[in-house]
């Protein structure tokens, strides 16, 4: 955000830098059950993003002081690999990933029936292998698939989706250039069945109308992404070829 691009992000035909329409998503690919040792896992390829999510638990929460006698605690850990971005990222948690881990944990807590597993923790590891803007929403999308795969009861499969504003136009699912040189980025987590919102952040400036517009766009796209999630989950049990 903030920087001004010395090139046009939206061309004269209204197409974006990668040739998409303003309300078009990047290509998405999802796979469930990619990590053998985890209770549940998923891989999401979203444009240039490559993300693995793995779920462990519910298991007894340690250290003991984080246990809640009434419900499970969801501990998401968002982590970017050192090689996930152009310039080597210094490994380890930083200000940004600590914040994202927190907001992702809270978004996931809102869909999981946490009260069924008192004193436990459900650990969600989100590893960004390759980043291309919108990793937190792709991470949420992968994490909810992994939770469903782990057999954890949920109200809905949560979907992450971003919208934003680029060169004065409200667009869906920003890519890296649009994220860096655009005017605003609005990552959201949506419950597709009810249209409820589990996460809403905004970086940059937009008017109220633009924000509402962006949110509507993301909610519509969430339904599309949700269909892909359902397909990925059912795919795992459709074929009978498995290697154990």
């Amino acid at each position, binding site marked *: 955000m903030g920087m001004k691009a010395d090139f046009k992000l939206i061309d004269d035909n209204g197409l974006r830098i990668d040739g998409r329409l303003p309300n078009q998503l990047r290509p998405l690919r999802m796979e469930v059950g990619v990590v053998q040792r985890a*209770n549940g896992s998923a891989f999401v390829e979203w444009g240039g993003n490559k993300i693995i999510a793995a779920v462990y*638990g519910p*298991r007894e929460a340690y250290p003991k002081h984080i246990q809640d006698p009434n419900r499970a605690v969801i501990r998401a850990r968002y982590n970017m690999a050192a090689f996930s971005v152009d310039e080597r990222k210094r490994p380890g948690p930083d200000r940004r990933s600590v914040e994202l881990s927190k907001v992702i944990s809270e978004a996931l807590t809102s869909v999981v029936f946490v009260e069924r*597993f*008192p*004193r436990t923790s459900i650990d969600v590891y989100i590893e960004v292998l390759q980043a291309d803007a919108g990793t937190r929403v792709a991470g949420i999308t992968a994490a909810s698939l992994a939770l469903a795969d782990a*057999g954890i*009861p949920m109200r809905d499969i949560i979907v992450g989706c971003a919208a934003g504003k680029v060169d004065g136009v409200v667009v869906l699912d920003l890519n890296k250039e649009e994220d860096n040189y655009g005017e605003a980025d609005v990552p959201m987590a949506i419950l597709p069945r009810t249209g409820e919102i589990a996460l809403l952040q905004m970086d940059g400036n937009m008017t109220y109308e633009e924000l509402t517009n962006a949110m509507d766009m993301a909610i519509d796209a969430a339904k599309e992404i949700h269909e892909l999630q359902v397909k990925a989950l059912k795919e795992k049990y459709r074929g009978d070829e498995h290697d154990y």
Partner: protein
Amino acid sequence: MDEEKKMRDIVVPGEEIDIEGKPGRGVFVENGKLYSAYLGIVDTRMGYVNVIPLSGCYMPKKGDRVIGKIVDLAPMNWVVDINAPYYAPLHVNDVPWRVEFGDTGRFLSIGDVILAKVSNVNEMGQVWITLKEQGLRKLEGGHIITISPSKVPRVIGKSGSMIQMLKDHTNCRIYVGQNGTIWISGAPDGIITVIKAIRMIEREAHTYGLTDRVKEFLERGDE
């Protein structure tokens, strides 16, 4: 899961289940509609709509027979991993031996496997298990495999038909814990056949006519 010859539909969390019936296990109600809470298969019986999860951890129930592994020793109890979210303590009063204080290691040590019964569970998830009942004991030798606890009923079959068939065909001794842990003892090739058959049951748990297919597999022999 009766003799219908079709594969049940797989539902995902939050998917509406358009079947008349009372909400059973694995479903929740919102605005008078039924929704699945799990990735699983729909099962209607006795007027209840249930969703049987395809994966997930074992939630202990009182009276279940489980196979557990000793993970820790304490002066008055053992700590047993029964594949549930919680470890289960096994108190010295719940074993058929007279154990002196601090002498737990002489009877069961870390890594030993036991066939135990869940004697109590409370709402906080705490679990107690016991060995003081006929047939409960330490399991020696043998081979252990783990399956998803939701598939245990398929491995056992209707009133034990599936497991009996496996035992008869392979001459193995098999114990199936409700927690999805299975102990097999017998000749090596018998064990291999049992494991293959159980993996097949696990893979095709959501289809019908499974017992016949497993029978066919056992009779065909092991290629």
